[in-house]
């Protein structure tokens, strides 16, 4: 269950290495790659966090559950 948390590193790799995305092309609706690529990571990071949330959801704990 804990290994799911490692997925949270993916958005960091995605946006913290600007050398990979610091370019103009391909454009999207007139917006340079640099901008739409980073904005694309907003829904992607949400999707990953939601996945982690679902996979690590803590069951309702009873009195015995430590």
């Amino acid at each position, binding site marked *: 269950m804990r290994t799911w*948390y490692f997925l*949270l*590193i*993916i*958005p*960091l790799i*995605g*946006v*913290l*290495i*600007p*050398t990979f995305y*610091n*370019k*103009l092309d391909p454009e999207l*609706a*007139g*917006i*340079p790659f*640099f*901008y739409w690529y*980073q*904005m694309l*990571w*907003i829904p992607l*990071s*949400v999707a*990953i*966090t*939601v996945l*982690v*949330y679902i996979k690590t*959801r*803590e069951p309702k*704990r009873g*009195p015995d559950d*430590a």
Partner: protein
Amino acid sequence: MRDTNWTALIVCTTLFVAVSALGFVASRWRRAESLDHLDEWGLGGRNFGPWITWFLLGGDLYTAYTFVAVPALVFGAGAIGFFAVPYTIVVFPMVLLLAMRLWSVSHAHGYVTPADFVRGRFGSPSLALAVAVTGIVAIMPYIALQLVGIEAVLRTMGVGGHWPIIVAFTILAAYTYQSGLRAPALIAFVKDTLIYIVVLVAVIYIPIKLGGFDEIFGAADEKFDKSPQTTDGVLLANTQTLGYSTLAFGSAAALFLYPHSITALLAARSRNTIKRNMAALPAYTLVLALLALLGYMAIEAGVTPLTGANGKPDNNTVVPLLFDQMFPDWFAGVAFAAIAIGALVPAAIMAIAAANLFSRNIWREYVHRDAKPAEEAHVSKIASLVVKAGAVAVILALEPQFSIDLQLIGGVLILQTLPPIVFGLLTRWFHPWALLCGWAAGLVSGLLMLYNTANPLTGKEHFGGAQYALSGLGFDTKMTVYTGMLALLLNIAVTLAASLVLRKAGAPREADATREHDYHVEAGDPDAKPLPGTPDELAPARR
């Protein structure tokens, strides 16, 4: 002086008055028996569910200053200003686990501030004091900056003088005093709704009016081509890439450490609430990204920033001016209200956070050790007034540029509390004295580096920015790095080395008041302390 835009001013003032009324009514909202307890006044009863927490954290973390300054930076320098986007993307995955652990241990022990936690974990009042004082010092200019956001809006509407800000902050101080954290929580609903409406309208309507993003980026490119600087442009210069990512990463780490973020986190009802919010908060990042692009739209629209008090163009007025130029007057008024009210929510939470640090970790620890909960709450309320008066005084007495510099320094300072708080949440291996040494090393080196950073553009010799040239450390490169991260690296190295030595030497240390189990407590667990509670472990240590 600009002509007064009466329509916008009336709309904006009406919304402002309505929201202030809400702030006073908030004391009755989800009413507690008494507000004479820090859990109530300072943390809103520790009972905010997922929705309220989402609005509260969103209203807290994405401040008015962010909304004004990020597009201003994009307007002035281009791509580097977009760092706010990766910054607010990575912050949530980065802090998810830490935030849950902090919430649980604070819930189990009744901690109100990050310094409370450090005190319990390491048993060291001096380390807790270091964390508390750093937090207060770092947050003061942040509050003052919220006023810079309001001032930009007022000047665009053609309202001069300082009195409107004094009035606004007096009202803010009054309802924060009365209602505590409930006031910003309730107002955050209005603020965020307004912001979402304004931004959605702006990013659909303005690009259509300007002829599409092709035109917008074309105009930006043209502007940066003409400028003599090498560090502006639609893309990052090669020497900026490391600075860009370290600034994003460092800012994300700093955001979690700021006392006001932790206050809003601890006000959540449950662990689960926190976790859900970490997935839902990036909705605000989308808003921020779209707002950042407004900087380019202002270039295409030919906006000329108003001249600031120092005689230089004040880029912070760019977004208000764009709204003023593009929108009908009444909607510009709504947009201005969104920014102005947007300043009040974080300012209130920051003042509460600073006040809690004072009453818990300074007053109670060093002045009156037997302070009862009612006295703590009272001290906090008074302290929140002092903090706000201080922020207004800073703005009135000093140039706005000075508070911007202070805020820059504040970010570097708060990052130096990372080892005690973040490492402390994960392990107790580090020795408290070593953490203190590391903290001091980080502070001194960070301040020295900031002091030695010149900015040829603004003609400043010192405190010219938070990007430190690696050539200053003897590296043969033109790369720059976020100063806070360099200071933090030194901080961590010193903490590590000193811990090894102190552990080897068997230096004494206090016991840990927390157990690993405490870091996993969920609301409603049988061993979760019924709230409100007083931190138990502070009692024996006081003898």
